[in-house]
């Protein structure tokens, strides 16, 4: 919300603090302005910007048009002579067509720089001397709109200083961010009221004239759920309606468009006292009156913006005397009853609507307006008379006949009991008694308009009609804190009653990430929202969980595997010729529960204990994507080994062939993939990306292959074996045995490893693959070198023991398709 300093000064005795005239000349750096900015910030009316708005009208005077002639050969401009009250008439060429001889207009002399930044000169146009310029409303800063020159009151004497005559002064614009719970502060009056209490200076609260005549007019009847207070007034004198230029400038600085005197006055009053009103063309209203009710299904209305709005029974509508819908209450008026140039009589509506209903309709119809923004936060039902009289006064209109009160069902606010001990217990300021000064007579709350009565040990606090946000003790306490000053409240260090720390699971996440980073892999943060195409490429788990209303099509559903998110990063890097790609991510994936078995469903795990059946299956996973040379298993396998070792899963985590029906995990290269099992449960997959996962257009950029590992982190945590015992190794000389096998290429290696371990028994201290190659002269076999280290607590390993082990291995390996190569 944008308001100006001179506007605030109309309600606030700023003169006791600083010279307002000097401040508006100086600008935002003026100490008085700074004081106001600090005060507004402290009160929670956050100042997002302060701008200087000089009038820039020095040298603009009122001139009378004394002649108006065409220029030969020019059809867009005309030659005028204007009388500026000094000497001979002045020659000015003008491109506007909305004026005639005798009109009074603002004339900017050569040398003047206008608010728009334009500097005027003397020049010749089509051979005619043109001195300065005749100005439009936009050029002199009194309106956002211009349809030609600004035509002034015919009684204005020529030659007077334009700015001074019309009261157009320098000003300062404050851009305020008003919180949703402060409807009262959405206007100049409300800001002034808060400032007056904080700065302890006088505040002039405007009131409707005492003599105002108001009569009840309850027929046809109105649903009190639709509006609990509705006034209507007939406004006459539309043909002579005007709106002061001085106020037009404020509207323009406040960011409002100028439309017509009556609409401008309505908008001005909304910015000034916070009450939106709506003027109707009275003759277009059936029955000459209005009422409010809930819409009926099937009803429609065409609003001011030209949209046809289909109504629902939760929408409040304004109807005319014939029960025809003429507008969306509190949101937007109807096109058919809009005030226009042809309007001869105006009916003005001022009402109080239920905030929640207005919010619902404005959101549902995507029709938020300045009016709905105020109604949906809650307006002041007591200010309607003032709004009506102020509009009539400002637009030079007559209120014809009495103001008619169509309904008044507003219930006064109930007093709220506030316990002094509670105030201290919530705010904690020391000494606590100081806080209660805010509630004292002539204290800030009373100055604002709260009614405060001390009743024994408690206070009875009745909020004013413009503070619908204050309805309970805690809300009064917030108001006390605000006017006491958040910055004045003491700080009291917290005595924390718990011992801080990470859970085992949280520590393991950190360990895992540090391990992978240490292995040369970068932690990635990939998208949770993916496209159907990405899901399909990565082996989706079935029916996706889609966004109800995605922002972009590529991010329309939740990822069911980490690969779905990481694949996009892979493509980005490959496309940018960045290699080798080495990324990992620890993050959640979301699947429907029916996918079953592929995700953590252990109810004891921390994550799952939080999840209710109302939510999808959300589990934390680890994904690792590494680029390798010809065979990416070489680069991905060490990652799996490292994880096994850190989590103590050596010999527990099984690496097996992929189950046919495996769902919920990424699809990988069919010849280079395995699944990971802990007991009966599949907890991950490992292998090489399927070539189809690399888009065709990038294939030529890919140098290597991509190894991939995806694991269920929750299962890792659940099966984790911590270090419990450190073995003291044998002191006797060990024996190392290199065994070379020719193994059938289609035979798995794992059984051979298991066999050797079994035969070595207690003597087997370590077993590792040290060599692996495919002989060119033997298509059927693969040569694998295994190094077995033998140790014993009992003594040195003898030659005989070694020999008998070799013989046993030789004899039993053949059954696994492995041939020990001797010699």
């Amino acid at each position, binding site marked *: 919300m944008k308001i100006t300093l001179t506007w605030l000064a109309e309600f606030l005795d700023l003169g006791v603090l600083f010279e307002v005239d000097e401040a508006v000349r100086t600008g935002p750096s003026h100490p008085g302005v700074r004081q106001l900015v600090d005060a507004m910030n402290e009160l929670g009316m956050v100042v997002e910007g302060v701008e200087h708005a000089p009038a820039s009208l020095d040298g603009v005077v009122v001139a009378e048009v004394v002649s108006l002639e065409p220029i030969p050969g020019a059809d867009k401009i005309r030659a005028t002579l204007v009388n500026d009250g000094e000497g001979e008439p002045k020659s000015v060429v003008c491109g506007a067509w909305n004026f005639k001889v005798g009109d009074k207009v603002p004339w900017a002399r050569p040398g003047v720089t206008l608010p728009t930044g334009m500097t005027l000169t003397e020049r010749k146009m089509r051979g005619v001397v043109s001195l300065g310029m005749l100005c439009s409303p936009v050029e002199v800063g009194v309106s956002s709109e211009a349809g030609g020159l600004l035509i002034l009151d015919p009684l204005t004497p020529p030659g007077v200083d334009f700015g001074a005559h019309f009261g157009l002064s320098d000003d300062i614009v404050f851009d305020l961010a008003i919180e949703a719970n402060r409807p009262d502060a959405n206007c100049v009056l409300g800001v002034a009221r808060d400032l007056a209490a904080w700065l302890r200076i006088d505040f002039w609260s405007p009131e409707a004239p005492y003599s105002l005549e108001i009569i009840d007019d309850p027929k046809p009847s109105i649903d009190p759920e639709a509006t609990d207070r509705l006034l209507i007034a007939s406004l006459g004198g539309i043909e002579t309606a005007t709106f002061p230029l001085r106020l037009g400038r404020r509207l323009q600085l406040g960011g409002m468009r100028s439309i017509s005197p009556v609409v401008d006055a309505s908008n001005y009053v909304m910015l000034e006292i916070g009450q939106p009103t709506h003027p109707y063309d009275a003759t277009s209203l059936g029955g000459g009156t209005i009422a409010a009710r809930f819409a009926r299904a099937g009803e429609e209305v065409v609003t001011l913006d030209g949209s046809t709005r289909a109504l629902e029974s939760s929408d409040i509508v304004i109807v005319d005397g014939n029960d025809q819908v003429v507008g969306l209450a509190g949101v937007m008026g109807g096109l058919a009853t809009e005030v226009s140039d042809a309007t001869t009589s105006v009916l003005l509506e001022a009402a109080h609507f239920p905030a929640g209903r207005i919010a619902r309709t404005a959101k549902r119809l995507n029709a938020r307006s300045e009016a709905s923004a105020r109604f949906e936060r809650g307006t002041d039902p007591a200010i309607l008379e003032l709004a009506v009289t102020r509009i009539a006064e400002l637009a030079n209109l007559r209120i014809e006949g009495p103001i008619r009160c169509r309904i008044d069902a507003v219930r006064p606010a109930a007093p709220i009991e506030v316990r002094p001990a509670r105030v201290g217990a919530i705010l904690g300021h020391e000494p606590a008694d100081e806080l209660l000064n805010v509630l004292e007579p002539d204290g800030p709350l009373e100055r604002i308009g709260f009614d405060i009565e001390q009743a024994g040990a408690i206070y009875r606090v009745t909020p004013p009609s413009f503070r619908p946000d204050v309805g309970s003790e805690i809300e009064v306490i917030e108001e006390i804190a605000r006017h006491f000053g*958040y910055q004045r409240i003491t700080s009291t260090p917290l005595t924390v009653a718990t011992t801080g720390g990470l859970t085992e699971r949280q520590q393991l996440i950190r360990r895992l990430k540090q391990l992978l980073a240490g292995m040369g892999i970068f932690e990635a943060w990939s998208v949770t929202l993916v496209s159907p195409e990405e899901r399909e490429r990565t082996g989706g788990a079935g029916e996706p969980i889609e966004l109800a209303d995605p922002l972009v099509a590529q991010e329309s559903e939740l990822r069911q595997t980490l690969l779905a998110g990481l694949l996009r990063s892979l493509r980005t890097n490959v496309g940018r010729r960045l290699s080798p790609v080495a990324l990992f991510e620890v993050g959640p994936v979301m699947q429907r529960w029916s996918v079953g078995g592929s995700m953590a469903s252990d109810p004891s795990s921390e994550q799952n204990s939080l999840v209710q059946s109302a939510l999808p299956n959300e589990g934390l996973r680890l994904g690792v994507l590494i680029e390798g040379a010809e065979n990416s298993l070489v680069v991905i396998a060490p990652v799996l080994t490292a994880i096994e070792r850190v989590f103590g899963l050596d010999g527990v985590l099984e690496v097996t062939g992929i189950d046919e029906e495996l769902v919920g995990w990424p699809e990988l290269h069919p010849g280079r993939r395995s699944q990971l099992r802990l007991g009966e449960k599949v907890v991950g997959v490992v292998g090489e990306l399927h070539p189809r996962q690399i888009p065709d257009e990038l294939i030529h950029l890919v140098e290597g292959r991509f190894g991939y590992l995806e694991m269920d982190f929750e299962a890792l945590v659940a099966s984790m074996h911590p270090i419990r015992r450190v073995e003291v190794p044998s002191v006797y000389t060990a024996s190392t045995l290199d065994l070379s096998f020719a193994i059938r290429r289609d035979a798995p290696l794992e059984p051979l490893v298991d066999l050797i371990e079994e035969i070595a028994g207690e003597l087997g201290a370590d077993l590792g693959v040290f060599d692996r190659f495919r002989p060119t002269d033997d298509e059927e076999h693969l040569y694998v070198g295994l190094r077995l280290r033998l140790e014993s607590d009992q003594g040195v390993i003898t030659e005989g023991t070694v020999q008998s082990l070799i013989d046993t291995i030789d004899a039993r390996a053949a059954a696994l398709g492995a041939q020990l190569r001797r010699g």
Partner: protein
Amino acid sequence: MAEIDVTLAELTGFCDESVGKLNAVMTNAELLAVKEAVHAPSTPLATLQRAMRSIAPEDRPRIGAAVHEVRSRLEEAIDVNERRVNEVELAGRLRAEQDDIAAYLHPGRLRGTGALHLLTQTRMMLEDLFIGMGFVVAEGPEVETEWHNFEALNIPKFHPARANQDSFYLNYGEPESTLLRTHTSPVQIRLMQASELPIYAIVPGRVYRRDTPDARHTPAFHQLEALVVDKGITFANLKATIEAFTSAYFGPDIQARLRPAYFPFTEPSAEFEITCTVCKGLGCRTCSGTGWIELGGSGMVHPNVFAHVGIDPEVYSGFAFGFGIDRLVQMKVALGDMRILPENDLRVLAQMRGVL
């Protein structure tokens, strides 16, 4: 007799000649050849040694001493020269193996060690800071129920605050019953429902808003939330905790201040601001000339929120505050455009190897 003396004379010559050869060898191979010649059966030394038994007893001491001396001289010469040749060969090998580590110091920017993401590093720093103050770290699901995300936090349907947190609702369950959480605050509700009191916890995590991405906003971002519920917790405690956190994280020359604000789930509510870290409070473009930058929201837990989770607000009170982690990262490393983060460009990730 004379025959023996002749051989004796040959022995001396043989010895001198062999020592000379040994002193001249340059390689182990040459040394080996000389050694073989010295130990050959046909040398005067070998001849004399074989003949010792047949030598007259009176000559034996003289001859024996001579043989012994020659043998000692030869062994010593072999030993000395073996060591000399080994030294020479080692020096040669070392010369030949000359190399420059610089050849291995430039693996290319993308090879070598990996890195934790800046968001993780920042999150860990923040977690450790609060752990030091006695807080535990809590987590919750990213897909939330509408009830936890809004309703229980005193944000009913059509509340203006929902408009500020435009949500990604999901086609899961009843329409608008599930969504990607718009803040970490629903975890407050889960904590209060599930935990024993008192609660001193922080909640870091990813959240989602239906915002069109720009330099400062991505639809997914990260928050950290703190929740304290205990007997006797006050706004004064909230102030002190925020001050302790900001000076610990940003340094002692950074001040924190609270100003009134509105959040439906806290009352009283406050925005908290810190001294602008760029200009140290003097006023600059980053802080729009105010000297302060807004960091997050805070306040005392609203009694309506306590009512939703069955905690008696007359017995317990609490505070909560939260802020964006991404913004802290952005401030610390002067990252202009947040949209590059989810791309995971390796050139960006490689810059995260250092220490924050």
